[in-house]
């Protein structure tokens, strides 16, 4: 007689340490194997889109900081690009380079957080996370030099950035890039070929490219699925058409590839930063003829998108001629990447579930907005 078993339903989250914030999964287990997954969102819903309708165009920049709080610079950039598209203006060249530079710094910081927590969820007791944060702290120090804040930067404004970098920023950046190259080598040595990591992640939760595209997955997750698609290449914004970089693409579509793509993207970001530093020239950093209170013409609309660290971040702005956006829809990569949760998790074990979720790298600030 076979042993009679019955499935067990477990709530993972919203206070679970590995769900990247207040994300909840209602999972039905058969032993340790996952039978059903239902993601439940909304615990961090702050109504950013509604709030944006009540604020003028520059004030909304402060809201974008709080979407994906590990990559606020890129959020600023996406929003400012959308507003610039709405107005039909272009920022000065130096501002473009500064934006590209800080966006890449932020991408490094964000990927370090993603990779650090990914390994943390694999069970390493904090060491890779601490090493990642050690480097990230330096990046945040650089942001503090630029704009006086570390996380909620509000650095960019429609029509440029709010101020030029202080003179001590450039030597600090050079020093950081030098140190980070060493630290990142160390980080790669610790992780990239680690057998335990390979055994745990290789072949686990593969996401086939057809599935990824159909689910509108974007960013490193899409590239790890073998699709060569990067908005920085495909629709170069700011100064990305003036720098050279490669797009890492995964070959096995699994958790390890998602981790690997992020590690490689950090390397490419370092390349971009070096090129930005070499190419940047003195000049204005903000459009002077743009008033503080912006009034685009009525009926104008724009969809500004960037390749954020999590994926395609888009702002769809509609203007009614007032000082505030009539509608500000945020296309957040984290939320839409979650579409594949069920596909990634069902059939795998509890331990893989946490890791797969970590490999998608969601950020609840952006999922719930």
């Amino acid at each position, binding site marked *: 007689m076979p042993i009679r078993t019955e499935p067990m339903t477990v709530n993972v989250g919203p206070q679970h340490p590995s769900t990247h914030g207040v994300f909840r999964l209602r999972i039905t287990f058969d032993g340790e194997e996952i039978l059903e997954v239902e993601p439940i969102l909304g615990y961090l819903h702050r109504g950013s889109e509604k709030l944006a309708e009540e604020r003028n165009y520059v004030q909304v920049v402060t809201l974008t900081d709080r979407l994906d709080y590990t990559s606020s610079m890129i959020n600023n950039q996406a929003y400012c690009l959308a507003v610039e598209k709405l107005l039909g203006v272009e920022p000065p060249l130096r501002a473009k380079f500064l934006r590209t530079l800080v966006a890449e710094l932020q991408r490094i910081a964000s990927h370090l957080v993603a990779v650090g927590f990914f390994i943390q969820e694999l069970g390493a007791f904090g060491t890779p996370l601490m090493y990642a944060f050690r480097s990230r702290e330096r990046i945040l120090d650089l942001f503090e030099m630029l704009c006086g804040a570390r996380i909620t930067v509000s650095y960019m404004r429609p029509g440029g950035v709010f101020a030029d970098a202080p003179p001590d920023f450039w030597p600090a950046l050079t020093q950081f890039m030098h140190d980070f190259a060493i630290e990142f080598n160390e980080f790669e040595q610790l992780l990239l070929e680690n057998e335990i990591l390979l055994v745990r992640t*290789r072949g686990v939760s593969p996401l086939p490219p057809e599935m990824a595209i159909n689910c509108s997955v974007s960013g490193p997750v899409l590239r790890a699925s073998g699709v060569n698609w990067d908005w920085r290449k495909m629709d170069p914004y700011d100064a990305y058409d003036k720098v050279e970089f490669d797009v890492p693409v995964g070959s096995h579509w699994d958790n390890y590839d998602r981790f690997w793509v992020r590690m490689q993207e950090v390397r490419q970001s370092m390349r971009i930063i070096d090129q930005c530093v070499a190419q940047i020239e003195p000049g204005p950093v903000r459009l002077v003829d743009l008033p503080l209170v912006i009034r685009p013409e009525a009926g104008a609309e724009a969809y500004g998108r960037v390749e954020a660290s999590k994926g395609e971040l888009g702002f769809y702005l509609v203007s009614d001629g007032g000082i505030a956006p009539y509608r500000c829809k945020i296309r957040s990569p984290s939320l839409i990447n979650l579409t594949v949760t069920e596909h990634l998790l069902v059939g795998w*074990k509890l331990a893989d579930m946490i890791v797969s979720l970590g490999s998608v790298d969601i950020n609840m600030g952006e999922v719930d907005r």
Partner: protein
Amino acid sequence: MNCQLAADNILFENALYRVIYDAVGSFLPCWLAYVAAGLAIMLILVNAVLLGAALVTWFERRLLGRFHNRIGPNRWGPFGLLQPIADLAKLMTKEDLIPAGADKITFSLVPLVMMAPLLLMTAVIPFSKNTALANLNVGVLFILAIGSLTTVAIFMAGWSSNNRYALFGAARAVAVLISYEVPVVISLLGVVMVAGSMSLANIVQAQAIPFLLVQPLALLIFLTGMSAELNRTPFDVAEAESEIIAGYHIEYSGIKFALIFAAETGAMLVVAATIATLFLSGWVGPFAEYIGWFWFLLKTLLVLFVFVWIRATYPRLRVDQIMALSWKFLLPLSLINLAATTLEVFFLRDSAGTLATIDLWIMAGINIPLALGCIFLFGNLVPENAKVLSVRPTTVVVPAVATVEVR
């Protein structure tokens, strides 16, 4: 009246016990002195173990901090040495929660059931020359048998907590223990065979050269197996922080949690002491007559350092992979080790059945290459699909269009 301890008494060789016994025996009846001295030495031992566990938590946290490039706890006392006391004070003032629906009696018994085997295990470990509480002639067996009892407590905790995460943790702990007990026992057989005795004191004395060299495979298996049984990284599935939060002790709070925590770190201390005794020649060292305890402590600390070092470096394996490691890797290795040791002992021993130092060197010369060869043969157990790193393109190519044809 002057009491004499019989020479065949199990406690006869314990110098500390005899000092206490003689002192108490001068004014108490002999049977009472026997009990009183026993109680006194138990008190010393229990406190030593608990204090040791407290210091191990400090040592581990401090060392992990340094591995992480942090400072670690350093606020209380010199170098933060009083941190465990502060933690204990905090935990004792916390509410002692018993979840609704929990099996109250089992739930409350768990800390005791966890603590007891740990204290029992310390009884047979020789801290210095003639300082084991009891020099049992089946010491190794005793340690293995008692050591596995902790799992009963873990399962009790998981079952009685009425929490699904705890249940996960308990089931995993039992599965891991059952798998790892086998190679661990077989690996120790080699040590016992070389030493010719199961008594820990005799094993220490038999180590003319540390068994680290004579039995490298056994050390590897024992270290791995004990990591698994202690729920240490990379085998800490039973209390995997990132998966099942704290596993079996998720529902424990206050003093119960403190006891469970102390039992866990205490177990680590005891296992480290066992490894120091079995493989690093225990208290033997220069001036061992006087500072044997120092060598013993040093070696224990060394083993603890290795445990912490591994914890600081590695991610965790999955349950099924841990099982596979045990059955596919450690078990064959332990059997090979057993066979090799048997043959070596059979051919090298003299007529009295003992091994000379030169014989041990010969065995070391055979066993170290054997261990490396075995790891080379069996160590490539990483599944085939994981070995793709070499075929990965080192430089990334960017084709002009999407590489994948989309259906």
